[in-house]
């Protein structure tokens, strides 16, 4: 595997540190004019999601981590694994465990496309698109009246996710939700 020297470090680079794949978040070059140069580097450990801060002597290097992001369609779960399939026409399937699926679980809808991060060929994490469209399966009955008042109520979506929605939303409607904040965005007009 290739390795990267400190002067190749930049945000987004994936490297191995202490045996774990990490993504470089920030790289600060520090050097007194007449002295030894250092790199102060912030990395996120992709296994634990923890952010590490490490110092390197300029010229040190780290091994590249075999980490790639792939678009995959979610197929089904067998209870233990969640199965995804490459959208490149190869139909290649990858089982992701609960740890890899993580918080994406509540946004998983069959046939939707997700970003699956592979480490050494196995799913490491699953990232939903920024916006998903999901059906409301349960919420209190729609309340007539002053919608401008901006009250809200919880609604359960088809994936099990619970989001706060305006009072006028009813069961069976399809909603657009921002997966980053978990917030309701709008109703999706049925065509």
């Amino acid at each position, binding site marked *: 595997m290739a390795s990267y020297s400190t002067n190749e470090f930049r945000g987004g680079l994936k490297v191995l540190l202490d045996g774990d794949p990490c993504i470089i978040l920030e790289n600060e070059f*520090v*050097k007194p*004019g007449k002295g030894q140069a250092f790199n102060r580097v912030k990395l996120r450990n992709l296994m634990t999601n923890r952010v590490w801060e490490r110092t390197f002597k300029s010229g040190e290097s780290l091994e590249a981590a075999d980490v790639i992001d792939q678009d995959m369609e979610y197929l089904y779960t067998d209870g233990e694994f969640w199965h995804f399939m490459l959208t490149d026409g190869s139909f290649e399937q990858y089982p992701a465990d609960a740890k890899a699926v993580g918080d994406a679980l509540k946004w998983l809808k069959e046939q939707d496309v997700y970003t699956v991060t592979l480490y050494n060929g196995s799913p490491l994490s699953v990232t939903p698109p920024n916006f998903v469209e999901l059906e409301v399966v349960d919420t209190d009955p729609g309340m007539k009246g002053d919608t401008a008042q901006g009250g809200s109520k919880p609604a359960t979506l088809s994936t099990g996710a619970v989001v706060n929605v305006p009072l006028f939303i009813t069961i069976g409607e399809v909603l657009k939700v921002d997966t980053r904040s978990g917030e309701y965005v709008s109703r999706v007009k049925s065509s």
Partner: protein
Amino acid sequence: MTGEPVWQPSASQAALKSRAQQLAFVRGFFAQRGVLEVETPVLGRCGVTDVNLDGIHAQVTAGSRTGGWLQTSPEYHMKRLLAAGCGSIYQVSRVFRDGEQGRRHNPEFSMLEWYRTGFDDVALMEELSDLVCGWLGCQRPVVIQYRDALKHWAGIDPFAATDRELMRRCEQWLEPEQLADLGRDGCLDLLMSFAVEPHLGRDRPMFITGYPASQASLARVSRSHGYETAHRFELYIDGLELCNGYWELTDPKEQRLRFEAENRQRLRFGKPEMALDEAFLAGLEQGLPECSGVALGLDRLLMLKLGVQDISEVLAFPFERA
């Protein structure tokens, strides 16, 4: 992995204008004091032996000469002019350092370097203060000893501490195996960069003087409080290192020994040996007048003038856009 090319400059129009004003200010300052402006090669035959400076090698073929180095500073050429009897001189030049890039670094930058014959380090620090404070409109700097700064902010005596104590102190930043071959000066550089520098020049500009003799390859050395210290000074403003100056070493034999020692150190660090600049050493043999010299980063001076945190805000085209 490289993004789309960007054609626009990264500095604002206001920054570009301020850069031109700064240059006019500098030239006016030296004209008034009768210091001669000179130009020396950016492309030289030799690089430098300094273990912490990586020059950029150039592939040049011209006449019987091939190869060359983009200069890391105009120092050797300017000292040859001093040896030739030019008197006090200054230069605004582009200098090049490989691998240096960040919020405060660009591999190519503008340096103001000047030499004052008959000045010692203290006299030159006064003149430097006139220039910097005249341009920035700041308070005059206070002077702090390197030793006191390390004691105060890093909690260690840089001269009295054993190598082991220094390494222990650095374990806050580096793993033991990274520290193994860092060396004493490397440890001190780490402490200076991470523990000390951020505090320097916060309330008002600050000179640091009295560096360990090992950290000044071209400065005179004297003993104070039982330790060998170099007549070297640096100016810090708002935690930013702005310049480096020496009461210059004029002894050619001593200079040659220091270059050879640096080359041995380069070999230890796995870096290639550099050919000694014999023309420079011959100039020293001829006789360098008693003088002090200082090199000041003009891009950083402009950062301070404009109150910006990133050098790309004062460069028309930093290397990633060049």
